[in-house]
């Protein structure tokens, strides 16, 4: 039995090799894609094996490299938590690479050499982040991930928007990484090691001895992870970067990359921080940050008319949900472990679910972009008739993200909201946060109904000629949509692993979520069972009742006839009477107009006086040289041509020099 770590190492090596190999094929667009896909497949198989191993329990550690003078070792380990995120990364990487093979045809100008090799490196770094147990190397993998993803975001190099977005993305996240560097170094100052275990011990010690320092360190870590995760206001990079990246990359960004921020937060608050009262304070902060993020993110998403930008903002919103769950979990951890396990399971499950539906949505938006060249929803309409698969998968993913039962988004939102309400019975603030989360889930629905209603439904222009995307682009979408349904009906499948991970990372033994039944569904236990959700039973009931309703509908034996839309008696071109996406829910949007302030960043202008002060030439050297020149001029007047006087100078000079030397010697 090979240890899980070895599989991960193999996976990373395969990816790096694949990156180099695909670079060789860079001149042939499709071949390059397929070669990359083959390597990603191989690495995914390895990662999959590692996940299977890691789910059972933490693997052994394997040290690859040592930096004794820094007290750092490149040590890898797979534990249940990282296994879950590894699974996300591997799945999303696999599907988006497959998707990109054909999708990249879309970019006639830009070479795929800039895409596939970098994508593979990016996946490799993500994998590395998840298995690394040494913070220095964690940071290195982390920033490699940022670096590679920066190049993927700015893939369309001639597009000014993608440049701006890439710049913003990299600067903000690099700043966040520097925060983490600072935190790591502050810890290292005390402990002399970067290992996760050392961090845990040092932090707990510092919390007792130097609480201010400890909290500062936690704050710096929080800043770092939250920025990557896209929690507002640090996540401001996200809505710019997602839309401009190639769609496969957008899916990877949103589905996998920002999840690593969540992974970091889970590690930080559930594993690095020992159970202590300070955890409760951080729980509240996390929950507030999450709620703010989900509120602002989703309501801003509602205002967008660019499909991918809308999805990007909704990513901020969904990450907010996860963060809220984490916050509730962290709050409850010291005192109510059962509740904590509910909220944490909800948060991690939502991360998994979000990877499924958001990637699916981005791929769907990509398919529309691929065929129509359009991201502006105002200009799209009625694609359902032309792109049935994309429509279907996008619909499923939209309903999932909106948390419509019985799709997967509901299961995790249900856990998070139930966690909020149950925690709210102890600390009423969470009640309000839960209510906001509930409300916002409807706003999410509203924003995705905009997508469905304006892009896919409605009437298409009569002159539109488009068709479904190629099969290699459909397959990833269908797989993700199928996962949305499957995980929605059987959340138990995933919850078992999630529960295991939560127990492993926090050390909680009390079970808040009972996911052992199939028909009986999920039970939340807070002393006694207090909340229930059985997707299977409900789906069955809905199916029976809908069939009953359909029987009623057909009972009259009514004839079906297709008719044109009624426009009150006149005829209209579909384009003129189409209700554009920007028009949806306008009064509501007006009510939340200013919640996402945006402004232009200006290139810093350097104050002129300071500049003058720093220009040494101007005020020091030039005058000095001039003065010297003048002095020399004056000295030159002593050149009178009389040898005696020169001789005198020499003698005086020799005496002075000798004197100095003697003085120095003595």
């Amino acid at each position, binding site marked *: 039995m090979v240890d899980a770590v070895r599989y991960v190492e193999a996976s990373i090596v395969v990816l790096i090799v694949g990156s180099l190999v695909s670079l060789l094929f860079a001149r042939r667009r499709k071949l390059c894609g397929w070669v990359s896909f083959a390597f990603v497949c191989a690495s995914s198989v390895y990662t999959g094996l590692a996940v299977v191993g890691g789910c059972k329990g933490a693997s052994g550690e394997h040290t690859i490299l040592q930096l004794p003078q820094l007290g750092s070792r490149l040590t890898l380990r797979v534990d249940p938590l990282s296994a879950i995120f590894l699974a996300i990364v591997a799945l999303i990487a696999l599907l988006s690479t497959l998707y990109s093979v054909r999708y990249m045809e879309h970019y006639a100008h830009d070479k795929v050499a800039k895409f596939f090799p970098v994508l593979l490196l990016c996946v490799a770094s993500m994998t590395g982040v998840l298995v690394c147990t040494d913070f220095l190397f964690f940071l290195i993998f982390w920033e490699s991930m940022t670096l590679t993803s920066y190049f993927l975001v700015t893939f369309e190099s001639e597009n000014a928007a993608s440049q701006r977005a890439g710049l913003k993305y990299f600067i903000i996240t690099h700043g966040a990484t520097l925060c983490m560097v600072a935190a790591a170094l502050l810890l290292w100052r005390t402990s002399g090691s970067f290992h996760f275990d050392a961090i845990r011990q040092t932090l707990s010690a510092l919390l007792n001895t130097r609480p201010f320092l400890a909290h500062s360190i936690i704050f710096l870590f929080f800043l770092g992870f939250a920025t990557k995760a896209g929690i507002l206001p640090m996540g401001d990079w996200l809505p710019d970067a997602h839309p401009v990246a190639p769609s496969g990359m957008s899916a990877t960004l949103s589905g996998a990359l920002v999840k690593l921020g969540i992974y970091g937060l889970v590690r930080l608050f559930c594993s690095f921080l020992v159970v202590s009262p300070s955890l409760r304070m951080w729980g509240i902060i996390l929950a507030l940050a999450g709620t703010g993020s989900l509120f602002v993110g989703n309501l801003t998403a509602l205002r967008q008319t660019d499909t991918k930008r809308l999805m990007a903002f909704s990513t901020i919103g969904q990450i907010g949900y996860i963060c809220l769950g984490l916050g509730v979990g962290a709050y409850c951890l010291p005192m109510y472990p059962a509740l904590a396990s509910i909220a944490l399971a909800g948060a991690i499950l939502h991360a998994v679910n979000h990877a499924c539906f958001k990637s699916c949505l981005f791929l769907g938006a990509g398919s529309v972009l691929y065929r129509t060249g359009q991201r502006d929803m105002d200009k799209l309409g009625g694609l359902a008739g032309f792109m049935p698969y994309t429509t279907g998968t996008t619909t499923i993913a939209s309903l999932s993200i909106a948390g419509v039962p019985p799709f997967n988004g509901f299961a995790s939102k249900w856990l998070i909201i139930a966690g909020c309400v149950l925690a709210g019975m102890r600390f009423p603030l969470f009640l309000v946060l839960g209510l906001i989360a509930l409300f916002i889930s409807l706003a999410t629905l509203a924003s995705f109904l905009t997508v469905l209603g304006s892009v896919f439904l409605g009437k298409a222009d009569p002159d539109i000629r488009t068709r479904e995307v190629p099969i290699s682009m459909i397959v990833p979408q269908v797989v993700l949509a199928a996962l949305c349904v499957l995980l929605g009906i059987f959340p138990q499948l995933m919850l078992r692993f999630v529960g295991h991970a939560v127990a492993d990372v926090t050390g909680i033994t009390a079970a808040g979520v009972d996911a052992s039944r199939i028909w009986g569904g999920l039970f939340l236990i807070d002393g006694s069972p207090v909340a229930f959700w059985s997707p299977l039973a409900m789906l069955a009931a809905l199916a029976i009742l809908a069939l009953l309703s359909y029987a009623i509908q057909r009972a009259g034996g009514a004839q079906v006839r297709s008719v044109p839309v009624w426009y*009150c008696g006149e005829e209209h071109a579909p384009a*003129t009477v189409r209700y554009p996406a920007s028009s949806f829910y306008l009064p509501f949007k007006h009510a939340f107009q200013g919640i996402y302030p945006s402004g232009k960043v200006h290139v810093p202008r350097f104050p002129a006086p300071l500049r003058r002060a720093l220009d040494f030439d101007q005020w020091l050297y030039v005058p000095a040289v001039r003065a010297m020149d003048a002095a020399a001029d004056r000295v030159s007047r002593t050149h009178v041509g009389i040898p005696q006087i020169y001789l005198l100078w020499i003698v005086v000079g020799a005496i002075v020099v000798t004197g100095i030397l003697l003085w120095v010697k003595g």
Partner: protein
Amino acid sequence: MSTIDQATVTRVKQVVAARSDGALLSATEPHADTLQFAIEKAALRAVVEGLVNELQARFMISVGTDRRPVTGDFAILHLFSLDHEHLYVLLESPVPEKDLRIESITEIIPGANWAEREFRDAIGIHPEGHPDPRRLLLADDWPEGTYPLRRDFPYNFQPPSVENVRPQLREPPAGASVVPMGPFFPVLEEPAYWRLFVEGETIVGCDTRIFYNHRGIEKLGDSVLTYNEIPYLAERICGICGFIHSTCYCQAVEKAAGIEAPRRARYIRTIMLELERIHSHLLWLGIAGHIIGFETVLMQTWRIREPVMWLCEEISGNRKTYGMNTVGGLRRDLPNQTKPKLLETLAEVEKETIAVRNAIVGDTTLHARTKGVGALTNEWAKKICAVGPPARASGVAIDARIDHPYAAYDEVPPQIATQEAGDTWARVLVRVGELLESIRLVREALSSVPDGPICAEIKEEIPPGRVGVSVVEAPRGEAVHYVLTGGDNRPYRWRVRAPTYPNLQALPAMVSNGTIADVPITLGSLDPCFSCTERLETVDRRTNEVRVYSHAELLEISRRKARGGGTR
């Protein structure tokens, strides 16, 4: 008759003379309150400008006349009213057949937009510089170059219909989409097409196509019917204010012919006109309620309205379309024994109206739906030449009953009230106030109806070439009838302008920046004409037996239907 200040007359003449700059062909005074000027068409625009800017004349309507059989040319006549001076000013310009063009005045008077497009469609005189080149009046498939109101156009001519012709309508601005309201729309009881450009639900513009139901009444008037037949046609111009149109027509002919209707007839006309106003306003109130979903108001006001209809039936034999008017007076007298019943019913109606008014005024939800909605500014109301309650609600104090007194209004003058806000709520208030004022007027007129004949005797043929302008304040505003007498016992030209005509032109400005939800009630607050007739005559096709159901029978049938039973 109100006195006409001779100084004003002189001043008008001066202005016209000065502005026309030698192009004045003639200046006449057909009647004491009417000044007519004939001007070279080149100077018409300048004179109009003078009238509007210096005398604040209000544009009423333009009349295009095909005078070729008489003088060999066409003529355009702009009618103006100097409301507070009680004067009509008629500016006429001959248009030679060779050069069928005339300068447009729409730039000076936005309210002349439709009038000019109308004579372009109907007579074929082109208003030069008109901002809107599109058709107004004629059907979209009407052949180009065919002008129905020319004398050589037979009244029964039917042009061949053409398939696939669409109205020429504007496209929405960028970012907006079209929400069509009409041609067939629940709150429009007549076909009209409002093409609303919306962003979300906010109206950013609108375009209109109406005149789907053009009936050619004017053509019939000057080609088929005689002077005394026309009142019945005029009465059918509108389902609600039929009496107003017949009165207005009769008054115009009487004026042109120099006939004066007897005093009793004028009093009875006043009573009928005010009764019509009462039931019309009650009807309107109900419709307005219905438009904003307040069915209770609809049901209750129509219930209150019903006795008024019965009264009309008592007086004229018909709930509506009374057939009472004729040139020179009335065909049917007011039976004196109905007076007590009339007064009694009026008291009842007044009591309930006051109750409804109090309920409406106190309803905050109604305030929410109407205050600040569909505002018509005072300035624009004047520019677009709005009339009636919409004008009065915007602070334009005009009322034909006072400005150009007719019937018995000089003896029983109404009190008019204006509002300043110009919004829908102001229009509600104006109408509710008028409702009560009308009840008072009816009561006052009833109490002082003089005895005497009801119709003047017309001894001689009406001479041709005489002009008569008459206005009547209908519930929706001022109706204008212009008659130019002709030979063979019929007018040479009969021009009708219903009050909705100028008011509808004000709608685009009123709805812009509002929401879709506000459009129906704003439109409703202008009270465009709605017909209603409840009389049912059944013909059994097997036996050809005609059977007229009584009111009680009808009621019974409808109740039976409502309970779920059949009619048979």
